[in-house]
C-alpha cells in the first residue's frame, strides 16, 4: 500500500491553526505519510509537526465554506484547524483518519524514521538480561538464568531469558507453565540485596472449579523461600473476583496446597474501568465552564486518584513485606501483565535506589514492562478521546507513571530524573518515532525485527544533550527505602500531564529554571574553588586554613 493513496489532498494553503496559549497562526498545511505539518513560513519554523499516530480522534464542523477540524491527540492536546473549502477539509479529515488508524505495524513511522543524531550507544543493547542479572542477582547462587523460553514456545508473552530458582529445572518450568495463565510461570522480578528476599510474578494459577493443583508449581515457589520462612502471595484482585475467575478455569492458590504462603487480596481495577476513568478525568480537566464544586466532584467521579491510591498502596504493601517483614512475595492478578507489573515495578522504585536513577528506571521499564510482556500495542492504541469500545485499551502504563510522579513529588531529592522524563515516556508509549514501545511482547518484537528496522528510544534519550533535559538538579543519591504517603491529602492530580494543555506553565517553568540556576551556580563556585585552593595549599606548605568548616 502506498501512503499516496491515502493522502487525498497533500497540501492546503491559508489554514488557520488554533492552539491553547498561542495566538492563531495562518499557514500552509501539508500531509505526509506520517505527519501533519503546518507552517506559516516565518522564521523557517513549523508551528505544527504532529505524528498521525498521536491522533486519538477528530471532529469536523462546517460553517458555510469554512471547515474546521478538531484534532484530539493521545497526549490530551486539542488543536483546531480552520480549512477554507469544504472539499479540502473533507479530504484532509478522511486522510488523517485513515493515516492515524493504520492496521499494519510495519507501516508505522518507526519503520521509516531515520535518525538525525549520532548514535552513541545502541539502546537495543543497553539493558541485556544477562547484564541485568549480574547487576541484581550476582550476590546469590539461588537463582539462575533459564533459556527455556528461547523460542517463545513455553510462554508467548515472556522474553527468551528469565530468572528462576536454581533448583528448578527447565522441564519443571514447562509443567508449571501449563498451570499458569498464559504460560506465565513464576519468575524473579526483584532481589532485595539487603535481606535476600524476592518479588516473583506470574499469571494466575489455573485451578478451575475443581481445585486443580500442580506439584511443580508448589515446588517452584517454595524453592524461593528460605528454611522456616513464610511468604506472601499478593493477588491484585479482590477475593470475589479471584473466586469468579475459577469458573473460567483460573483461580488462586489454595492455602492447603501452599501452607507456607499467606494470600492477600487487593483490588486494583483493570481494562475498561481504567480507560473510562481516564476519559472522565480528561473530560473534567478540559471542561473549564463549571464552578469549583463541580470540578472537585468530577475529579472525584473519575476515580483516577482512587486507582492511584489503590496501586500505590499495594506496591507499598509489597515493599513492606520484603523490607520490613523480611518475607518474599509472589504477585499476580489474572494475566500478570498489567496490575501485577504496576505493583512489582513500583515496589522496586520504593526499595531499590538504582531504579530511581535515569538508567535504572530505563532498565526497570525494559525488564518489568517490555520484557515482562505488557501489551503496549493494545493498551496504548487509543487514549482519552477514543470512542471505540475495544476491551484492551487501558492506561495501565500511564497510571504507573503517575504513581512514580506521586512518589517523586514526595521525595523530590531522591530521583535522578525529573517530571519531564516521565512525560516523555508517556508520549512515546502512545506515539513515537522509535520502535521501543511497538508490539505487545518480545516475541512480536522479534518477528517485527524491531532491533534491525527501528531505532530504540534509549539510543536517543541516553545522549548527554537529551539527558540534560531529564536530569533533576535536586538529585542526591541515597541508598534508602522511601516510604510514600498514600493518604488522600498526599496524592495530587498530575498537572504536568492532565492540565498541560489547559494552563500556562510559564511561571512554573521559570521557577524550575531558577532552581537549576541556583544549583548550577553553586557547582560552578565549587569547581572554581578547587584550582584556587590547591596552589594556595601548596604555597603555604599544606597549611590549610579554610574559611569555611563544613
Amino acid at each position: 500500500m502506498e501512503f499516496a493513496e491515502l493522502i487525498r489532498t497533500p497540501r492546503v494553503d491559508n489554514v488557520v491553526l488554533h492552539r491553547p496559549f498561542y495566538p492563531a497562526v495562518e499557514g500552509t498545511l501539508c500531509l505526509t505519510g506520517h505527519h501533519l505539518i503546518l507552517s506559516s513560513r516565518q522564521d523557517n519554523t513549523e508551528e505544527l509537526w504532529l505524528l498521525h499516530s498521536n491522533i486519538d480522534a477528530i471532529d469536523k464542523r462546517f460553517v458555510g465554506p469554512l471547515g474546521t477540524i478538531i484534532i484530539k491527540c493521545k497526549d490530551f492536546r486539542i488543536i483546531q484547524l480552520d480549512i477554507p473549502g469544504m472539499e479540502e477539509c473533507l479530504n484532509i479529515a478522511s486522510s488523517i483518519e485513515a493515516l492515524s488508524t493504520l492496521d499494519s505495524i510495519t507501516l508505522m513511522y518507526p519503520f521509516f524514521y531515520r535518525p538525525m543524531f549520532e548514535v552513541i550507544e545502541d539502546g537495543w543493547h543497553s539493558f541485556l538480561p544477562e547484564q541485568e542479572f549480574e547487576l541484581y542477582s550476582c550476590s546469590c547462587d539461588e537463582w539462575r538464568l533459564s533459556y527455556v523460553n528461547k523460542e517463545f514456545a513455553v510462554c508467548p508473552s515472556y522474553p527468551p531469558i528469565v530468572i528462576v530458582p536454581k533448583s528448578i529445572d527447565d522441564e519443571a518450568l514447562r509443567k508449571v507453565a501449563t498451570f499458569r495463565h498464559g504460560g506465565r510461570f513464576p519468575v524473579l522480578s526483584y532481589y532485595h540485596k539487603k535481606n535476600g528476599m524476592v518479588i516473583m510474578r506470574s499469571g494466575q494459577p489455573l485451578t478451575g472449579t475443581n481445585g486443580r493443583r500442580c506439584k511443580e508449581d508448589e515446588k517452584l515457589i517454595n524453592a524461593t523461600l528460605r528454611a522456616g520462612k513464610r511468604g506472601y502471595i499478593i493477588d491484585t484482585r479482590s477475593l470475589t473476583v479471584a473466586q469468579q475467575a475459577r469458573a473460567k478455569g483460573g483461580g488462586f492458590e489454595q492455602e492447603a496446597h501452599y501452607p507456607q504462603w499467606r494470600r492477600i487480596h487487593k483490588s486494583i481495577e483493570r481494562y475498561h474501568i481504567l480507560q473510562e476513568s481516564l476519559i472522565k478525568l480528561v473530560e473534567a480537566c478540559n471542561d473549564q465552564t463549571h464552578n469549583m464544586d463541580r470540578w472537585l466532584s468530577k475529579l472525584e467521579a473519575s476515580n483516577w486518584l482512587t486507582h492511584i491510591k489503590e496501586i500505590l498502596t499495594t506496591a507499598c504493601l509489597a515493599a513492606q513485606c520484603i523490607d520490613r517483614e523480611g518475607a518474599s512475595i509472589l504477585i499476580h492478578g489474572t494475566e500478570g501483565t498489567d496490575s501485577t507489573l504496576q505493583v512489582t515495578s513500583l515496589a522496586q522504585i520504593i526499595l531499590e535506589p538504582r531504579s530511581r536513577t535515569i538508567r535504572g528506571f530505563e532498565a526497570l521499564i525494559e525488564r518489568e514492562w517490555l520484557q515482562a510482556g505488557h501489551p503496549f500495542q493494545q493498551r496504548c492504541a487509543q487514549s482519552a478521546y477514543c470512542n471505540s469500545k475495544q476491551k484492551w485499551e487501558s492506561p495501565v502504563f500511564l497510571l504507573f507513571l503517575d504513581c512514580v510522579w506521586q512518589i517523586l513529588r514526595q521525595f523530590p531529592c531522591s530521583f535522578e530524573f525529573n517530571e519531564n522524563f516521565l512525560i516523555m515516556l508517556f508520549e512515546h508509549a502512545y506515539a513515537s518515532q522509535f520502535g521501543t514501545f511497538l508490539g505487545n511482547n518480545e516475541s512480536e518484537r522479534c518477528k517485527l525485527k524491531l532491533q534491525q528496522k527501528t531505532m530504540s528510544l534509549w539510543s536517543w534519550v541516553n545522549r548527554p544533550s537529551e539527558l540534560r533535559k531529564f536530569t533533576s538538579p535536586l538529585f542526591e543519591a541515597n541508598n534508602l527505602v522511601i516510604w510514600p504517603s498514600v493518604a488522600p491529602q498526599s496524592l495530587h492530580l498530575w498537572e504536568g500531564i492532565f492540565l498541560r494543555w489547559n494552563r500556562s506553565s510559564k511561571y512554573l517553568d521559570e521557577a524550575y529554571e531558577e532552581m537549576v540556576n541556583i544549583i548550577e551556580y553553586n557547582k560552578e563556585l565549587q569547581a572554581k574553588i578547587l584550582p584556587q585552593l590547591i596552589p594556595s595549599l601548596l604555597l603555604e606548605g599544606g597549611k590549610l586554613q579554610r574559611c569555611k568548616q563544613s
Partner: protein
Amino acid sequence: MEHIRTPKVENVRLVDRISSKKAALGTLYLTATHVIFVENAPDTRKETWILHSQISTIEKQATTATGCPLLIRCKNFQLLQLIIPQERDCHDVYISLIRLARPVKYEELYCFSFNPKLDKEEREQGWMLIDLSEEYKRMGLPDDYWQLSDVNRDYRVCDSYPTELYVPKSATAHIIVGSSKFRSRRRFPALSYYYKDNHASICRSSQPLSGFSARCLEDEQMLQAIRKANPGSDFIYVVDTRPKLNAMANRAAGKGYENEDNYSNIKFQFIGIENIHVMRNSLQKMLEVCELKSPSMSDFLWGLENSGWLRHIKAIMDAGIFIAKAVSEEAASVLVHCSDGWDRTAQVCSVASLLLDPHYRTLKGFMVLIEKDWISFGHKFNHRYGNLDGDPKEISPIIDQFIECVWQLMEQFPCAFEFNERFLIHIQHHIYSCQFGNFLCNSQKERQELKIQERTYSLWAHLWKNRADYMNPLFRADHSQTQGILRLPTTPCNFMYKFWSGMYNRFEKGLQPRQSVTDYLMAVKEETQQLEEELEALEERLEKIQKVQLNRTKVKSKQSEPSKHSGFSTSDNSTANTPQDYSGNMQSFLSRSPSQGDEDSALILTQDNLKSSDPDLSANSDQESGVEDLSCRSPSGGECVPSEDSGKDRDSDEAVFLTA
C-alpha cells in the same frame, strides 16, 4: 493560676493520630500559659507544648477501660488526643482547660507575661519596624489629589478606624462627617491603596444606610470626590462583596447598597463572597474531612467539595482579581465594601493590593499589608479569632482565608514572593497565639487604650529577626515574576485552587512531602554564599602569596582533590521515615510492627530538622521540665519561645503505620 485544678497528671497517654495503636506514655502539666506533655521515654523525653490561646475546643469522650479520653483541637489545626487514667483527673484537666482557654481579660493573655528578654529600646524599635505613614509615602502620598485627614483625630468620627487616613483633597471635613453618618458604624470611604502609575485608587468603607430609598448628599459628594481624585477615569466602580441577596436583605434594616441612579458615574457590582457564618461552617466541615481516619479518596474529595472551602477561596480571589484589573487595566478607582467593611473588604483589598504591587510580596511589604488593611482598619481580631471569651458566632477564619489566598498565589507564581510558606504558617500561628501584641483587640483605639506597644512585643520584629528562615530561595528582586502586576488567567481555572495540606494537616508530618525543595535550595544558597566569601578570601591570599613567591620556583602538578564541598546532604538531616498503614482493613496479617527508628530510611529533609528556623519551632527540645518556671520565660537564652509546632515533634512521623 487559680484556674488550674491539677498542675500535673502522670501516666497520661498521647495517642498518635495516624495509628491509634501507638500512644506515648508521659506526664501532663498545666501551666498558666501552656499545656505540656512530656513523654516518659528516657532517650527523647519529647515534649509537646500547647498554648492555651491556641485551644479551640476540648472534648471529653466516653470513658473506656484504658482511661478517659480528652480531645483538644487547636486553632492552628493541631489535634491532640490524650487518655487520662483517672476520670477525676480528666475532669479536673477538662474544667481547668475550659477556663484557661477562654480568658476574660486581656491581661490574662500570653503576650502580657511573655518576655523575650529584650530591653525597652529594642522593644520600641520592634514596634517601629512597620510604619504606615512611611507606606503611604511610598505610595506617593500626599499628592495633588489625596491628603492626610485629621478628621478622625481621637477617633472622633469612627472608633474602629485609625486616626491617620487619606481622603480625596476635595473631600471636606463636612463631607466626610456627613458621609460617615450614612455608613454603617460610620466607616466612611477612605483610601486603602493608591496606584500612582495611573492615579487609580482602592477605597474602602462599610455599606450605606440607604434602606429602600434614603440618600445622603455628602456621601454622594464623597464618591464624587474619589472619582475626581482620579483624572484618568470618568467613573468609579463600587464593589459590594456580598451576595446580592444578602445586600438586599440589609435594605430592610435600613442598610443596603448604593443606588446607581443617585450617585453620578458609578458602576455598581456585586461579588458574592459569603458571610462570616458561612465561612466558619465551611472551615469546620473541611477540618472534619482532615480529621477523618484513613479516608478513601472519594471521602476526601467529596468532603472537600462539600465543605465549599475552595469555592469561597476562589470567590475572594475573583474579587481581588476584578479590582486589580479595574485599577490597572481600566485605570478606574474602586470603592469596596461589604456590610461593616472589616472582613470581606479587608480580604479583597489586600488581595488586590498584593496582585498590583510587588512591594507587598516582599517580607516587609507583606507585614505592611497586614498592618494596613487588617490591623489599622479595625479588623476585629479579638472577636474573629476568639482571643478572649466571647460570642462564638463572631468567630470566623477571615484572615486565614486571606493567608490561604496568598499561598494559592505562591503556588501559581513560585518566584514572585520573597517569603516562603513557613512565613505564612507562622503568621497564622501567631494570630491565634496572643504571644505578641499585634493582633490584640478589635481596633486601633482599643490597642491604644490598652497601651499594647508599651506592654507587649511586636511579632514583626520577631519575624524580621529570623527572616533568613522565611526567604523564598526562588525569589530574585530582578526576576520578571517579581515585577509589576500578577496576571492570572482570564478563563475560570477551578483546578488552580488546591487543598493546602501544609496548613490544615501541618501537624501530620507523615502526609507532607518528605523532602522539601525549599529547604534544600535554601541550604544550597547558604552554601553558595559561603563559597563566594571563601573564594574571595582565597583569591586575596593567593595574590599575596604569589607576590612573595614570585622569585621562587613555580609550583605545578595537580594534587588530589579536597573533599567534596557539600554542606547540605539530604541524608545528614535525618529522621526515620517509616511506612504508613498500607494494609488497610487487612489488619490481621502483618503482625510484627516494624522496628522504630530503623536505620534505613533517613533522608527526610524538612523544615523541622534542617533548621531550627524560628526558635519557636524547636525551642522546647532543650528545655528542662521544671514546669512551673516554664510558663513565660525561656530558659535557653532569651530567644526561645515555646509555642509553635508544639515542640520538637521531629519524630512524630516515626509513627507506626501498621495497625496490626
